[in-house]
């Protein structure tokens, strides 16, 4: 797997009410990722960048909203999110990373 590619896969943490709930309840971390990222890439990227062990990755694509303006219909970008389950007892402290 291309090492350069791994640095581009993760766009950033997704912080929301649900994200904090799954972080506490099922030891999962939520990321926004590039739309073409695969689960394998995400797993490799998280393990490499945060030095943790990833148990599983689940992804979803949140479709962008269609917005109507005077000039017709526009569409916002889709967002791909990844729920990454970490090995028991591990966590990621985002304060120390960018």
């Amino acid at each position, binding site marked *: 797997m291309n090492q350069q590619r791994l640095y581009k896969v993760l766009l950033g943490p*997704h*912080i*929301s*009410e649900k*994200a*904090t709930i799954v972080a506490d309840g099922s030891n999962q971390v939520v990321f926004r990722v590039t739309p073409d990222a695969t689960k394998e890439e995400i797993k490799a990227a998280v393990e490499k960048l945060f030095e943790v062990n990833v148990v599983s990755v689940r992804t979803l694509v949140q479709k962008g909203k269609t917005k109507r303006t005077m000039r017709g219909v526009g569409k916002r970008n889709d967002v791909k999110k990844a729920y990454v389950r970490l090995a028991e007892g591990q966590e990621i402290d985002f*304060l120390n990373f960018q």
Partner: protein
Amino acid sequence: MQVSVETTSGLERRMTVGLPADTVDGAVEARLAETAKRVRLDGFRPGKVPVSVVRQRFGADVRNEVVGEMMREKFVEAITSEKLQPAGNPQFEAVKNERGADVEFTATFEVYPEVEVADLGAIEVTKQAAEITDEDINEMLESLRKQRVEYKPVERAAQDGDRVNINFVGKLDGEAFEGGTANDQTLVLGSGSMIPGFESGIEGMSAGEEKTIKVTFPAEYRAENLAGKEAEFDIKVNTVEEGVLPEINDEFFKSFGSEETTEESFRAEVRENMEREARNALRNKLKQSVVEALDKANQFDVPGALIHDEIHRLQHQFAQQMSQQQGQQIDPHQLPAELFTEQAKTRVRTGLIFSELAKQLEITASDERVDAYLSDVASVYQDPQSVIDYYKNNAEQLNQVKAVVLEEAIIDAVVEKANVTDESVSYAQAIAPAQPAVEEASEEEKAE
């Protein structure tokens, strides 16, 4: 809470205070929980932000805030229990400030010096008294007449004190120079408004006459190209007017806003005014003399913070005066602080002495004293009662009045006990501004 106080230098104290970890952390947690209810974050509904997220985001800020507040709070507590009197604001520094550990901080501040006022009997005060004589009044009338002098054209040669209207052309080596030419210039001979020799050169000329006079500019003339040079002025006198002093009559009285009709009563009014002026001036001098004597007799260190505040105040005052007198706007903070240091020190010290004296002698701005002062102030106005009411209903103004009254009372008390030398002076001496001792001192320094 453990408190320890050490003296670093003079009036400066450093207080070290330790706070137990659970008090601080408890307060921080409580504050965080409270913040969580108010804070708005993307991805969370308002009020639904978990405390853990808030702590991650704002933990450090909240902690600093809480510790800062606690430091101030505990400082006040510690001050009271240690019976210290801090002057100015303390400087806080958190030595140890970590979650789960005891917090320790130091507060550096200055204390008020222990003022022990030296024996008042040993203080030398000069009390001046002025008697207003008929001569003084004559002089005053004379100068009042001079203020209302009227000029009337005369057909004779100009002499000292006359007002002339002239055209002149100034020439330097035969060439007219800039600013040396004017038409229709009025000039009072002997007023000294022109360079020396110019006015005396005109004396003896009558209206319509032309003459060329030679004048040497003084060496320190403000235009450098002219200083020390000899110049020729072609002068044409247009008119010569004689100054006529007004008659002492009703009209003259009226021009000064007086309703008196006889010279006698006008003189009485003038005398009254002069007496009031002299009384006020002498009172101020006495006050100054008392302040100086007290200052000299009681030398002690004053807290730097107070001096700093006072300098600040003086700077503002000075800037305000400048803007009023000369229409100049100055930034008070640009004025050099050194200029005011000495004055500020004296003022702070006097203030401390006065407050100590008030305590010692048990002088307060009692209602009777305030009332007496107010009715005195109000008596000058047309409707005294409304003036009194104005002050009474205005807490800020009333406080100022109280301060003045207290000061006066203290000065009276000091004068009573001090070693007073009576001195009688003339009216002119009485109203002349007193020479501040500070200036004398600086001149002595220069002499050395």
